[in-house]
């Protein structure tokens, strides 16, 4: 019955992938230059091509031969496993030789290195797939290698450079800078000898009082002894530390205190907003979305600038209306207010998901057991929301620590960690000191990131069953609803007033002195302001595409494939979420300022900074979207002879296109509004809108700063509106496709 089909041995199809990548590598290494004379990446030096160098350089000759060998392997009439082993050898040897040559030559890399490294990695990936070492096909294997190399060069290496600069000064390993910086009063001063009071004693007293109070309460309520001891120690140490910080001085104290206060307030606001959005019976909740997106899509320091306009020494409210001449809001208080207003939406977006995921059936169950709505809120909603609230707090704390724009505009000379990094380089020309500040800041944000990810990740109660109960959300108690709405309206009015003041400021002659109308500032933007605006748009657009695609690809790799080091790759690529922009900035300066990887002073380094800074946005939205797709769709495509590249292109991408588009737009917006990571990287030729606004403000032309900031804000709002409309059309289209008839 069975006529067995045998595959005739020796008739093996040519492997076009190997042939193609080997060929690309060979041509690139032969015709592109291996180094460049200056910073410009795209200079073509005829005497530096492989063709010109090969006769005198045995290494380049070897590289060319390996590339040719890789291409010929594809034509070799041998089984795939044998070709695979040959490709692994050629790819690995070629990539290592290329890297070795580049590092040893100490000359800025050029096109040939890029082509050779990426080409050899693809050959290696194809080989690993053919030999079955990586259980994925050639495209995914190559992608894994590419992504790994990118993450190592553009995320891990700059961080390493910062760590290194903190302890290596002029080639010497020394802890001197670390010790000097950490003991300087600018960093932290607990006991100020210039004041008559003894801060340490006062902090100890506060801690003691808190401990005694908690212990007494615990004893009265007859709690178990072990819990009382724990709570007492916690409260005593916590209160003591907080008091010490409050009484102390220095950048560390300012940043930590700011992060704690902003974290608590912004999270509180965010929780109130989340409850409103999900549970309010009032129409005002519809305004939550549009209002809360505004601070997210504008540079955070726009609010800082507006604070000066409204509440500064000549502020419209403080001076114009109230007749005061106060500088209360010029300093840490102002920074705190600006950050609270700006970061509340971040907490809101996190907590909205948490409140949304809460099963209303639980609350209904509690109510049928006789609980009042307040009681339910206290005993069901709050405990369920607690992990989410901690999560939001930590995210806001990271944002606050990392924020650069508000402290530099409103700080009033008070040092913060993020700004000290800047002043150490720009003001004191001491990159080592900057690195120490950077390491401290990085250590703090990184530990928060780790807590948030690994500790809280397990503590969440949400989505226990995943079974929708169909119960509609319970409305808030009327009193709470009204109070919360009042808080929201107050916040919204403040936000409106602040943004409004920037818009008005851009057409006002001299804010605080002469409020007459003028178009002078807008006119003055030409030509410099407009050029900068155009450069920013261009670079952000260039960065958004690779950033989204790379993020999406990583998201796909970590959710859908298994390979050694997958978790490490996921962790390192998400790392740039936790790395403050200023730290990333000095990392890039330190890493790419000389030698083979010279990139500073070019527009490429700005694009790269954007790409790798915003990649986590793409990863997150990619992972979320891919989880929505039934895995068997991709398997069906594979069974129908499609390789993974085709499956991605024809099945996955069409199904996630609206998520992809959102990711693209947000990567663009984040790049347009970024300040801290690029402030060290800009040059007069490649200035960016945000840094230009900062320098306008710094050099006294606030009006022009306001004009450019307004322009940026309007542009961002328009971009988001277009995204919203396009995505709605996409969704309608998708709905039509999926419609039941």
């Amino acid at each position: 019955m069975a006529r067995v089909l045998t595959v005739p041995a020796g008739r093996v199809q040519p492997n076009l992938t190997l042939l193609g990548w080997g060929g690309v590598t060979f041509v690139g290494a032969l015709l592109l230059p291996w180094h460049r004379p200056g910073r410009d990446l795209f200079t073509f030096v005829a005497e530096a091509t492989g063709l010109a160098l090969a006769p005198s350089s045995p290494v380049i000759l070897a590289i060319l031969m390996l590339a040719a060998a890789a291409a010929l392997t594809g034509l070799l009439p041998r089984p795939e496993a044998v070709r695979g082993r040959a490709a692994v050898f050629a790819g690995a040897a070629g990539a290592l030789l290329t890297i070795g040559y580049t590092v040893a030559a100490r000359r800025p890399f050029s096109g040939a290195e890029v082509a050779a490294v990426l080409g050899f990695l693809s050959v290696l990936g194809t080989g690993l797939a053919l030999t079955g070492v990586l259980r994925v096909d050639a495209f995914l294997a190559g992608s894994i290698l590419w992504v790994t190399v990118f993450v190592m060069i553009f995320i891990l290496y700059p961080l390493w450079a910062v760590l290194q600069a903190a302890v290596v000064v002029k080639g010497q390993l020394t802890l001197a800078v670390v010790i000097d910086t950490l003991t300087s009063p600018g960093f932290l001063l607990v006991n100020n000898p210039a004041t008559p009071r003894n801060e340490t004693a006062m902090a100890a007293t506060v801690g003691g009082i808190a401990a005694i109070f908690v212990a007494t309460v615990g004893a009265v309520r007859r709690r178990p002894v072990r819990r009382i001891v724990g709570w007492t120690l916690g409260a005593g140490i916590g209160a003591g530390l907080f008091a010490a910080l409050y009484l102390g001085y220095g950048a560390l104290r300012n940043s930590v205190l700011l992060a704690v206060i902003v974290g608590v307030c912004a999270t509180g606001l965010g929780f109130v907003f989340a409850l409103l959005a999900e549970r309010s019976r009032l129409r005002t909740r519809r305004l939550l979305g549009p209002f809360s997106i505004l601070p997210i899509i504008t540079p955070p320091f726009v609010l800082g600038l507006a604070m000066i306009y409204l509440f500064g020494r000549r502020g419209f409210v403080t001076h114009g209306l109230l007749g005061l001449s106060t500088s209360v809001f010029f300093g840490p208080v102002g920074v705190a207010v600006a950050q609270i207003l700006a970061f509340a939406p971040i907490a809101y977006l996190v907590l909205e998901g948490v409140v949304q995921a809460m099963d209303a059936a639980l609350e209904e169950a509690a109510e049928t057991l006789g609980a009042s709505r307040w009681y339910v809120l206290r005993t069901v909603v709050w405990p369920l929301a607690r992990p989410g609230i901690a999560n939001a707090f930590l995210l806001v704390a990271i944002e606050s620590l990392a924020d650069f724009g508000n402290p530099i505009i409103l700080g009033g000379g008070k040092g913060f960690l993020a700004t000290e990094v800047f002043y150490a380089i720009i003001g004191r020309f001491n990159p080592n000191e900057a690195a120490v500040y950077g390491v401290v800041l990085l250590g703090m944000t990184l530990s928060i990131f780790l807590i948030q990810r690994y500790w809280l990740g397990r503590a969440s109660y949400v989505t226990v069953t995943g079974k929708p109960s169909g119960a509609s959300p319970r409305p808030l108690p009327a009193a709470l609803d009204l109070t919360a709405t009042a808080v929201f309206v107050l916040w919204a009015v403040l936000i409106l007033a602040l943004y409004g003041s920037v818009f008005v400021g851009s057409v006002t002659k001299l804010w605080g002195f002469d409020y007459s109308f003028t178009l002078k500032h807008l006119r003055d933007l030409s030509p410099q302001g407009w050029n900068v605006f155009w450069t920013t748009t261009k670079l952000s657009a260039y960065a958004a595409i690779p950033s989204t695609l790379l993020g999406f690809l990583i998201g796909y790799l970590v959710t859908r494939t298994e390979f050694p080091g997958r978790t490490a790759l996921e962790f390192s690529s998400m790392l740039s979420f936790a790395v403050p922009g200023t730290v990333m900035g000095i990392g890039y300066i330190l890493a790419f300022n000389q030698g083979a990887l010279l990139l500073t002073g070019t527009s490429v380094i700005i694009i790269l900074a954007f790409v790798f800074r915003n990649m986590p946005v793409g990863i997150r939205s990619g992972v979320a979207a891919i989880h929505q797709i039934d895995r068997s769709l991709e398997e069906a495509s594979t069974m129908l002879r499609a390789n993974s590249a085709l499956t991605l292109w024809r099945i996955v991408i069409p199904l996630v296109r609206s998520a992809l588009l959102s990711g693209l737009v947000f990567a663009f917006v984040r790049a347009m509004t970024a300040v801290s990571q690029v402030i060290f990287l800009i040059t007069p030729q490649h200035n960016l809108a945000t840094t230009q606004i900062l320098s306008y403000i710094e050099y006294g032309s606030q009006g022009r700063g306001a004009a450019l900031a307004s322009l940026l804000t309007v542009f961002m709002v328009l971009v988001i509106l277009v995204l919203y409309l396009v995505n709605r059309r996409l969704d309608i289209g998708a709905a039509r496709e999926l419609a039941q008839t």
Partner: protein
Amino acid sequence: MNGRGPEPGAAIPVRLERVTKRFGRVLAVDDVTLEIPAGLLVTLLGPSGCGKTTTLRMIAGLEHPTSGRVFIGDEDVTPLPASNRSVTMVFQSYALFPHLTVFENVAYGLRITKVRDAALRAQVGAVLELVGLPQVGERYPAQLSGGQQQRVALARALVMKPKVLLFDEPLSNLDAKLRKRVRAEIRDLQQRLGISTIYVTHDQTEALALSDVIVVMHLGHVEQVGSPFDLYRKPATRFVADFIGEANLLPGRYAEGMVTVGPYTFAFRQEGVHAGAVTVVARPETVQVATAGQGLPGTVRSAFFMGTTIDYLIETPIGEVSASAPPRVTGMLPVGSDVRLQFAEAGLYLLTEDGR
């Protein structure tokens, strides 16, 4: 065939050699060796978690064995990715691409293998007609009923003219009535096309109705391979006896053509069984219930009138025995009646103790 659809005659076998699959610490498939004959419909049957789907996915190339080899025909396909094996699969969820029309869904694989437009149209049209859906080409999958989606998934797999066709629980999303009809259609189509087919299910009635050969799997290994009739009549292990159909598994002894269960001894001969302890496999429909005479004594605990039969649960000295008796024999016996049970020779099978 009328020249439409895949050509018959190229059926080839599938062979698994000592295949093992681990997921981390979990042993999903444990040293399975299996020969799947060409042109037949073979079912992998077992409870969830028995390794049947993993086995299927290793044949498909969607999972790779931790050790062992997979052969399709004479070719060792173990290192080949799914896209390079001449195998297609119908998924449990159908996995129809929601953003493509029915026509484009079916044409998907042909487009990838670069079939020319005219040939492509002809082939897609023919296969849609083959599955009885010639008019739905321009619709999207969500606009079809469950049964229609199922057939589109089948058409999409057939159009590639696979050497082996795989089914992963294809009927589990259909309602009971439709399931019976589609089951018959699949069987009919497979018979006409003669493609080697491997079908995974946990539903033993489905397996009995469809298969030429059933492979019963349990805890990652193969319990028994055989025709549906053999499995039902001569289960190799207690697990198979229990899983395929309903069965009473009674402790007994065998000696010289005589079987003893509890106080009752009767004549029964089975080749190859040595004297000693045995497990008596008695299907409920072969347990005869009488109110008097010879037999295993017992008391009726419950009685359910099912229409064609009455299902009794009877307590005996060696445990509870279920029996399905035709109502016309005794009428319906009231609960509490004392009865005698006898076993029809045709439905009886003895398992020796090593049958687990």
